[in-house]
């Protein structure tokens, strides 16, 4: 059986299957059901973001499952969900769910859940979204598992080789992970969202040792009907040129007409015009919509890093020398206080 296994699973990358993996019942049952494929068999744990209202996984989680399918054989993807409510819709491609029914919203508890589930089974890959949520739980869980994660992956080259950006995206690194279990976080904008399906697969109720040295007190979330900034098709962002938070209403009016999300540059957040979760940039959100309209934004390196993968970029600024024009497909040198209302009216 081992000989058969090694012929079938001829890896196209430098990767050897551990003896324990080859002898595990899951692996053996795969080979005996005659899956004569050259794809690498790899069991993968995807870490879900907190569920949305109604028990639906987030768009970032959908993209993460796509990444998990790309890096592994896709045969065995489990989804770890830590939430009080039961999941109702998860991405296609997930064959099993570990549900930790826990109202505790602490990152330490989520990291503990990852550690406990990963320690109980043998996963080749653990994949999470590279959001604030992911970047808070992944390194803690990795340290607890003695793993060195590769974070912000934007491209999967092979089963152990990934591309990640550095220096505000001005340098890309091709990185080879050498840990036996590859722990990754992936940029949602780099992977298509796997479509949703109803939960029909095996849901394993899982418990976790709660973390008691911190207490979650409350959250302050601005509810909006606008699409989620990280996954919207159109984003309109404002910068220092807006001069005050009140003026952002001009962008909101345009966003309402275009069904767009509203973002901001770091300068606008720094100046207290808008909250931090609207920040687009190297140290904010990375977005890649079909259309990005930068209004009153000069285009500092750090901002470009968060939006330069957008399909079409428009810039509106009075300063013809503003660096934003170097990445814009269409640049309009104009006063935003006239151009934006005109655009809103005519769109």
């Amino acid at each position, binding site marked *: 059986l081992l000989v058969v296994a090694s012929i079938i699973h001829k890896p196209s990358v430098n990767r050897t299957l551990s003896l324990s993996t080859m002898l595990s019942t899951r692996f053996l049952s795969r080979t005996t059901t005659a899956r004569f494929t050259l794809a690498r068999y790899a069991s993968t744990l995807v870490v879900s973001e907190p569920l949305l209202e109604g028990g639906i996984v987030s768009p970032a989680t959908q993209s993460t499952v796509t990444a998990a399918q790309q890096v592994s054989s896709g045969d065995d993807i489990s989804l770890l969900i830590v939430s009080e409510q039961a999941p109702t819709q998860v991405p296609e491609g997930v064959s099993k769910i570990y549900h930790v029914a826990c109202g505790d919203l602490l990152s330490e508890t989520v990291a503990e859940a990852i550690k406990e589930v990963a320690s109980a089974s043998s996963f080749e890959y653990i994949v999470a979204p590279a959001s604030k949520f992911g970047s808070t739980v992944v390194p803690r869980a990795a340290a607890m598992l003695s793993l060195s994660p590769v974070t912000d992956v934007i491209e999967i080259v092979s089963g152990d080789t990934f591309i990640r950006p*550095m220096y505000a995206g001005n340098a890309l690194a091709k990185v080879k992970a050498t840990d036996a279990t590859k722990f990754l976080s992936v940029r949602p904008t780099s992977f298509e969202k796997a479509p949703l399906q109803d939960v029909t697969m095996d849901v394993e109720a899982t418990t976790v040792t709660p973390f008691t040295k911190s207490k979650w007190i409350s959250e302050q979330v601005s509810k909006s009907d606008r699409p989620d900034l990280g996954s919207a098709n159109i984003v309109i962002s404002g910068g220092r040129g807006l001069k005050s938070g009140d003026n952002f209403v001009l962008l909101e009016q345009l966003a309402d007409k275009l069904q767009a999300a509203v973002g901001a540059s770091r300068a606008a957040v720094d100046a207290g015009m808008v909250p931090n979760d609207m920040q687009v940039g190297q140290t904010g959100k990375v977005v890649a919509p079909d259309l990005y309209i930068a209004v009153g934004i000069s285009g500092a390196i750090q901002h470009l890093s968060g939006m330069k993968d957008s399909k079409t970029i428009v810039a509106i600024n009075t300063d013809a020398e503003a660096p934003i024009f170097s990445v814009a497909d269409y640049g309009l040198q104009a006063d935003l206080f006239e151009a934006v209302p005109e655009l809103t009216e005519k769109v």
Partner: protein
Amino acid sequence: HCSKYKVLIHIIKYTPYQLIMKILVGVKRVVDYAVKVRVQNNTVDLNNIKMSLNPFCEIAVEEAVRLKEQKVADEVVAVSIGPKQCSETLRTALAMGADRAIHISTDLRTDYMELQPYAIAQIFQKVVEQEQSDLVLLGKQGIDSDCGQTGPMLAGLLGWPQVTFAANIETDGKSMTVERETDDGTETIQIPALPAVITCDLRLNEPRYATLPNIMKAKKKKVDTLVAEDMGIDLTPRNEVLEVFEPPPRKEGIMVDDVDSLLDKLRNEAGVIE
């Protein structure tokens, strides 16, 4: 011997019961934020490039110094890992108000190419254990490696509470209430008792400029040196950087004259609007 004993009893009797908070702050020497790096010879060329204190580490130092000024902390120790020029980075932290510094000397690159967060977190763990720190303040990410891993990794190794992306910290010296940035707003976490690891985000504070008198005072403050390679930690990167390259450049765009021509292009050329 007898008089030392008397002094010790005196100290124990008369030290007011308060948390003597020792803060450890990480300060990373990175490429200055205004520099657009160039990729050459399969790496980022750092020769003759302006280096600075990582902006988020600067925010961490500022917060530590404020906690000292509020009299809830009594010592701020700044730590930097890197070549001998890290002494400049540490002097900046000392000039801002840190009490003393520790330089972990290494010639390994700290921008992910050689030394990576897993090893860095282990180095910090050793220093924290040696210093018996109560609070570790780090920047949320280094603007060179863009990893943002060291804080939560260190907290995981230590088993300590962690709060990342801190936007506001309130403390009475014993417990801490931290407001942190999340993907869709903010949330508030309480840490009933230290020790803890907190990583600092943009809105936490606005760092002070070091005044000239403080820069001069900083020259007299103590800087200890340890050698990274002698700390008994495996510094080899678990993730090998095989290649470094620049992203493909964007196709050059055009300027349009007015809103009408912009809409025309968006509707008919780019096809992103109906």
